[in-house]
């Protein structure tokens, strides 16, 4: 990164090598065809240069055989590229289960990051080397895009939505974090850095600042403060569905559809509770739009995610509430 005149970006994540391999394969195809065809054209242009104005070259209409050849060969090449690219893309979009969760909120013009243990950072992200990091990305205003060239990852931060990206840093160092989607005046200043540290250093760094409040704890506090607890009681006696163990499961809705209770659904249910009401319940929940910030929402979601099924009980998922 401190090189004065680099020609290729650093490879600092597990994905970077995969993306580069694919990239150089396409570069090879590109260079081969560009140079090959250019040389043929130059060769023809010189060899068949008009000698006299009376030249009347013999007519050639075309050749079906040739047309088929130069349709099918490129088709084969692009199918290969497509398959390879899709494989890499799926990996990029499938965070491993053991990934640590980091939440990212874009705001004009800064990146607000929160560690799984609750430490907040602005325009910086500290991560341990070798550990998978799952990013849950959203925005408070316009569309931004979280871009770390050294990791070859990029994901838009879209207001009202949670997008997911992940990486596993492989090299200790400091890397650029850019906003890649134009977001207004200070777009080019919305840059930060990702600091990849040895796990021990990362632990030391975590211990450094003031003792953080973990998002789960903050979420639990909010859950009480906002009186969510009065309806969403863990003993299924409240007016709202029980939330223990609900996260990640299918939920049957009053409309007959089933949705997975993921981040987006919980987010929507807090802000627009009447949109997708769980089967067997009345749409009585008020909206919390304007009452909770994006960061508080993330804390609430973290808390709901953490709610386990009390041992010894049957699963009180709402599917059975009918």
């Amino acid at each position, binding site marked *: 990164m401190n090189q004065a005149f680099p020609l290729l970006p650093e490879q600092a994540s597990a994905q970077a090598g995969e993306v580069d391999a694919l990239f150089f394969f396409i570069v090879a195809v590109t260079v081969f065809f560009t140079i090959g065809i250019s040389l043929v054209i130059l060769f023809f242009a010189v060899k068949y240069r008009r000698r006299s104005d009376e030249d009347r070259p013999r007519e050639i209409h075309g050749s079906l055989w040739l047309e088929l050849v130069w349709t099918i060969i490129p088709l084969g090449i692009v199918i290969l590229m497509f398959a390879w690219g899709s494989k890499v893309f*799926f990996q990029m*979009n*499938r*965070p491993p*289960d053991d990934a640590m969760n980091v939440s990212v909120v874009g705001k004009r013009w800064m990146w607000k990051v929160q560690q799984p243990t609750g430490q907040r950072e602005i325009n910086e992200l500290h991560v341990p080397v070798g550990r998978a990091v799952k990013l849950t990305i959203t925005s408070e205003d316009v569309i931004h895009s979280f871009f770390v060239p050294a990791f070859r990852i990029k994901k838009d931060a879209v207001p009202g939505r949670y997008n*997911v990206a992940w990486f596993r840093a492989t090299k200790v160092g400091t890397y650029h974090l850019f906003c890649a989607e134009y977001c207004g005046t200070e777009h080019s200043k919305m840059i930060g850095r990702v600091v990849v540290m040895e796990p021990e250093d990362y632990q030391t760094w975590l211990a450094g600042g003031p003792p953080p409040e973990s998002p789960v704890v903050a979420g639990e506090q909010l859950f009480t403060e906002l009186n969510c607890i009065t309806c969403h009681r863990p003993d299924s006696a409240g007016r709202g569905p029980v939330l223990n163990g609900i*996260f*990640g499961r299918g939920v049957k809705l009053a409309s007959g559809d089933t*949705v*997975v209770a*993921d981040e*987006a659904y919980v987010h929507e249910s807090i802000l627009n509770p009447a949109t997708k009401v769980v089967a067997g319940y009345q749409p009585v929940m008020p909206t919390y739009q304007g009452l909770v910030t994006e960061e508080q929402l993330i804390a609430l979601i973290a808390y709901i*995610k953490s709610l386990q099924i009390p041992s010894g009980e049957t699963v009180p998922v709402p599917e059975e509430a009918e």
Partner: protein
Amino acid sequence: MSDHIVSWKVYVAVFLALGVLTVLTVVAASYDFGRLNLILALGIAITKATLVVLYFMHARYAGGLTGIVIAAAAAFFFILVFLTLSDYTTRSWSLTGY
């Protein structure tokens, strides 16, 4: 595109069919068929539109070119809707396990 002259009776018949279909769509909307509601409403609307195109707009008597233009417009509209929906209907198919 052609000078094919249709009897005025055809127009009146088409008009009556359109009226009946309009009543039908209102009646159908007063019952709850679940998901069929939308399909029924669109089916009737498409039938009505087809009648207008074929008879009032003379597409039935016009050349094949008119048909191609109509088909192209419909096809590109469906491309717009279906490929957009390919995103919306599969967005929640999560890749992430919890």
